[in-house]
């Protein structure tokens, strides 16, 4: 089950996208998501698909691998698309029993669907090409200006990276506890939802206990290694923008400008229709 979620997974291929500064990738992903909601025309979507497609190509991550991430949200996607198709009012195309499908509804559904698919692919591409530790480093650097507002930026980043390190350990431990309890006759698979939820309590209690014990030990170990927060701390790998990062920013700006420009283009199907009449 957990294997299907590609968001948050890393796919090493050593491509130019992998080598980009994490800050570039975080900023680009955010900008891309915002732009997706500004797109209103077919040309705009074509442009966004072209852009994302070339980034995927450059990243050398197999398309199959990226599309696997969509499986997890398939239900949500279909639900949104169908609901949009049926609920939008406008020029009626088709009437079936109590359902009416309108022209605007079909367009709306198509756009929403495309938006969601592009959004998921875009954000999973970021995590697929960036290691968790680079990601937290990038976030820490991007949020650094917030330090002036007394936001504990360093602490947040440290917590995130420790959480990432302990997720697999705690998953393994959950598995161990479940097996130990199954060996003594615990039943996690049958029964109704409430019964199954109740069966989880005996897993959570020892899991929490051990998580707290681990946290205590980790804190002692960090103290023993002279950790004292942000003050006077240096980093082995300081993030530094290279030429390719500036080029990437330039490409992003060009793409954004083009995409916004498409909003002001006349609607092509409308032009064709007016030419034909």
């Amino acid at each position, binding site marked *: 089950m957990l294997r299907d979620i590609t968001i948050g997974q890393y796919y090493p291929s050593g491509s130019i996208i992998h080598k980009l500064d994490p800050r570039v990738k975080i900023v680009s992903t955010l900008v891309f998501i915002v732009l997706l909601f500004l797109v209103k025309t077919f040309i705009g979507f074509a442009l966004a698909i072209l852009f994302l497609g070339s980034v995927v190509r450059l990243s050398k991550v197999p398309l199959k691998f990226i599309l696997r991430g969509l499986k997890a949200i398939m239900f949500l996607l279909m639900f949104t698309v169908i609901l949009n198709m049926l609920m939008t009012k406008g020029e009626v195309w088709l009437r079936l029993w109590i359902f009416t499908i309108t022209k605007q509804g079909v367009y709306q559904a198509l756009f929403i669907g495309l938006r969601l698919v592009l959004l998921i692919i875009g954000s999973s591409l970021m995590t697929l090409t960036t290691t968790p530790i680079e990601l937290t480093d990038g976030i820490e650097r991007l949020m650094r200006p917030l330090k002036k507002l007394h936001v504990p930026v360093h602490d947040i980043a440290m917590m995130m990276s420790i959480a990432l390190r302990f997720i697999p350990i705690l998953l393994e431990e959950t598995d161990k506890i479940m097996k130990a309890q199954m060996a003594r006759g615990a039943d996690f698979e049958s029964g109704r939802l409430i019964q199954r939820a109740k069966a989880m309590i005996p897993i959570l209690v020892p899991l929490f206990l051990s998580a707290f014990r681990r946290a205590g030990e980790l804190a002692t170990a960090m103290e*023993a*290694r002279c950790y*004292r927060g942000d003050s006077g701390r240096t980093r082995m790998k300081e993030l530094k923008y290279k030429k390719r990062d500036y080029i990437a920013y330039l490409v992003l700006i060009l793409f954004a400008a083009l995409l916004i420009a498409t909003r002001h283009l006349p609607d092509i199907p409308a032009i064709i229709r007016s030419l034909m009449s």
Partner: protein
Amino acid sequence: MNNTMVRSEGLSFSYPVYDDEGNKQGVNQVLKNVTLSVQKGEWVAILGHNGSGKSTFARHVNALLFPEEGTLWVNGIDTRSEEQIWEIRSSAGMIFQNPDNQIIASIVEEDVAFGPENLGVEPSEIRSRVDAALSTVNMRKYADRDPNRLSGGQKQRVAIAGVLAMKPACIILDEPTAMLDPSGRREVMDTLERLNHDEHITILHITHYMEEAARADRVIVIDHGEAVLEGTPKEVFAQVDRMKALGLDVPQMTELAYDLRKSGIDIPADITTVEEMVEALCRLKSKT
């Protein structure tokens, strides 16, 4: 130049004990008047059964705990001098029992860099320290791996590298092999031997494996918070009756020699390894 790495004089420490309602019931005297010293470059094993206070002593050396009575000097610094606490912690690095709970980063080299980063070392200097530390523990080729995918012995070696990168004069290990399999245990012990011999790092090794203690220069036995026995491994283990009375074992071969002597066979009492036993038995045979 002072040659003492760790010196404690009349060191005492206690925990308050609470009952179920949170009322103070009394105190648990963990350390009682411990006086001992460890020379620079020495490898000292501290033995004791569970709850004897040996871990508490280790935490004092790293300034994680502070003496209640008495004084503890690490590299000439009184551990109670708060402004020098980071100097104490970097010169006396500490390795804990559970390798998982002392690795902080999710990449091996990032974890090794954690200590020097905290000390504010220059980035280029950190890089060279990390590479050197990983080479010393033979983990250089795992530099960019995920610690979760390493074996227990490898994780513990990464933890040792993390301490080495702070350039300590002394390493304190609190039962570093207790959670490892035999091959992991051997990896860690061989690493310790290299550190002590080649890098001249003082080692304070807390353990309850007698075979491991036998590799040290000196053994100190702690029982109920008191240092009760002290000497070379041979001197200490030869006192089989005394060790048993303290609830401790002696190495298998020492025990065998003890039993043989009891049945009237003339064999040295201070045998600790299989090799020595073989030699002694051969000599015995050639005599008869």
